[in-house]
């Protein structure tokens, strides 16, 4: 292990840590994936779906990043791109200071040991022919752990996710409930002792009481195993509960990012505001009569010019159709940034501040 010479070994530092505390665990820059649409006589590429278009974000060590957005906005594709289950067209992923899949960087195989994923469909993500023990021990075995040690690890992990090892090791997925299966999936993801776990709608299919149990389990595991989470969900309440920071996506783009307090307390992008107002509320005084958002998201094969949200935005003006808004920092302390012309000083939008002192403006790197 080659540590950087400048880092000072802290008392309870993770031995797997390479970049130091200030180094984000994951840095994503310009991630891009266009899926080709094949058609015509010779199955040629006739168009492309712009699933993930120039997405950049950081995940700090030990934090939980929530990713929200409508169906089809590229949340799951982003997760699969990070795991390299899909090859990105462009962009770089830097895991704790090491470029994934780059020369002198981290190999994809090693990255997969440090980064794991839990899928939404708890049934489809378990092999029906393997016992729970075999399923959990599979990953460690692939990485050269001996059979016995892998089985011991599987038993220990079952205990950690709240299932009695003696009752569950020999059982098959179809004998378990949805909540139990998702616990198995979590145990399987943790079997490689990863540092980052991506949850792709991992609790969406569970009923509310089981969902609450699993969320608490995730919080416990995160504390006990010093994990970092990327939590993808369309349930804004769940994201608010579990996340430290939130990333809002729309049609393959990041439209707003910031701490939970900033996003839920002071949303700046009209899309985020619409999303939040669509959240069900228990308060009859907050009854909404007009829909927060109308229509479907535009076709990602041919997205709108300029700002992608302008076709559904109540504040859209001429500048929105011509210029694509960059992600602009709106409040530095809360790491709050939004991609909206109304937030960019001097953008030409009538609601934007016409001129601003230069030291306050600046794009997110």
């Amino acid at each position, binding site marked *: 292990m080659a540590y950087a010479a400048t880092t000072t070994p802290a008392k309870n530092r993770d031995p797997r840590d390479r970049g130091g505390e200030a180094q984000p665990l994951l840095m994503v820059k310009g991630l891009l994936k266009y899926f080709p649409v094949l058609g015509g006589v010779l199955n040629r590429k006739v168009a492309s779906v712009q699933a993930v278009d120039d997405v950049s974000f950081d995940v700090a060590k030990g934090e939980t990043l929530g990713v929200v957005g409508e169906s089809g906005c590229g949340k799951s594709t982003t997760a*699969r791109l990070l*795991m390299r*289950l899909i090859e990105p067209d462009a962009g770089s992923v830097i895991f704790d200071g090491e470029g994934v899949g780059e020369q002198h960087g981290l190999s994809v*195989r090693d990255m*997969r*040991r440090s980064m*794991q*994923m839990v*899928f*939404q*469909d708890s049934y*489809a*993500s*378990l*092999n*029906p*022919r*393997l*016992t729970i023990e075999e*399923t959990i021990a*599979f*990953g460690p075995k*692939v*990485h050269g752990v001996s059979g016995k040690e892998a089985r011991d690890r599987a038993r220990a992990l079952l205990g950690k996710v*709240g*299932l*009695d090892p003696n*009752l569950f090791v*020999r*059982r*098959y997925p*179809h*004998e378990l*409930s949805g909540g*139990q299966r998702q616990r198995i*999936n979590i145990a*399987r993801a943790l079997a*490689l002792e990863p540092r980052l776990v991506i949850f792709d709608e991992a609790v969406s299919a569970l009923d509310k*009481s089981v969902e*609450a*149990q699993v969320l*608490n*389990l995730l919080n*416990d595991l995160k504390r006990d195993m010093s994990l970092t989470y990327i939590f993808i969900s369309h349930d804004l309440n769940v994201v608010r509960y579990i996340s430290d920071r939130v990333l809002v996506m729309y049609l393959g783009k990041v439209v707003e990012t910031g701490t939970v307090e900033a996003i839920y307390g002071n949303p700046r992008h009209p899309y985020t505001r619409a999303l939040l107002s669509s959240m069900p509320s228990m308060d009859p005084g907050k009854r909404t009569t007009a829909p927060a958002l109308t229509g479907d998201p535009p076709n990602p094969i041919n997205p709108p010019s300029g700002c992608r949200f302008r076709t559904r935005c109540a504040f859209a003006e001429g500048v929105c159709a011509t210029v694509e808004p960059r992600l602009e920092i709106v409040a530095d302390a809360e790491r709050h940034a939004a991609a909206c012309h109304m937030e960019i000083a001097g953008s030409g939008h009538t609601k934007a501040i016409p001129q601003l002192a230069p030291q306050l403006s600046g794009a997110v790197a």
Partner: protein
Amino acid sequence: MAETTLPGMVPDTPVASRGYWSSVFRRLRGDWVTIFCLVVLLAIILSAIFAPWVAPVDPYKTSVIRRLKDIGTPGFPLGTDELGRDMLSRLIYGGRLSLLMGITPVINALVIGSLLGIVAGFVGGKINMVIMRTVDVFYAFPSVLLAIAISGALGAGLVNSIVSLTIVFVPPITRVAESVTTSVRNLDFVEAARASGAGSWTIIRVHVLGNVLGPVFVFATGLISVSIILASGLSFLGLGVRPPEPEWGLMLNTLRQSIYVNPWVCALPGVMIFITSICFNMMSDGLRAAMDVRA
């Protein structure tokens, strides 16, 4: 373990686990039709294997004076054929060749077809296209015609008919294996295995094979009956085994001329083909039901 326990929530109840195969066996045990078919098949297969001990007389021994005797003739419980040979002994010995020609091509095709289908389904893309379009070429011919054409080209004989029937059965098995593999490959557990860092070979061995071989095996069991009928057909046409070998299809052919003299005896080889193939079919249906884990 801090965990929210909601009031009135039922705790996870422990259930003793059974293995996959033992649960298949348990379901099979309650299925009387399948059990009955299995017993009948077992009786036919065992009597074919132990034919020299089971058969009452020599199946090749001819006699001019006792030709085409009725069923129930003393000493000849199932009568005699057109050359005076004992039908019961010939039917027992005939099972050897008929079952061999019915089962061997299917086993061969199971190995070749699964391999091709799994590779095509798992790799996809151009390799899939090459394999599956080649397989489609064989679909252009009806299976009977294809078997006759290949047998005719290779010449009559036991080995050649097995080869020709193998070629006939590879395409359908490849198709089934390919379609099942394609659907399994897209399931999340294969993605999860890839996310664990496993290579393609490990994923095929651990995650794909177990899920694909079950359905393919059941499908192949159903093909055995077709194979027996086709093999009999080849022998009937003189493209399979040659007289005086006892083989059900060939016996049906040689007894054809005597159908007006003693129709009951002449129908016996056909009855054997019918019983064997229907038992294989019913057993395949029973296996399919028993192997469905969600049942």
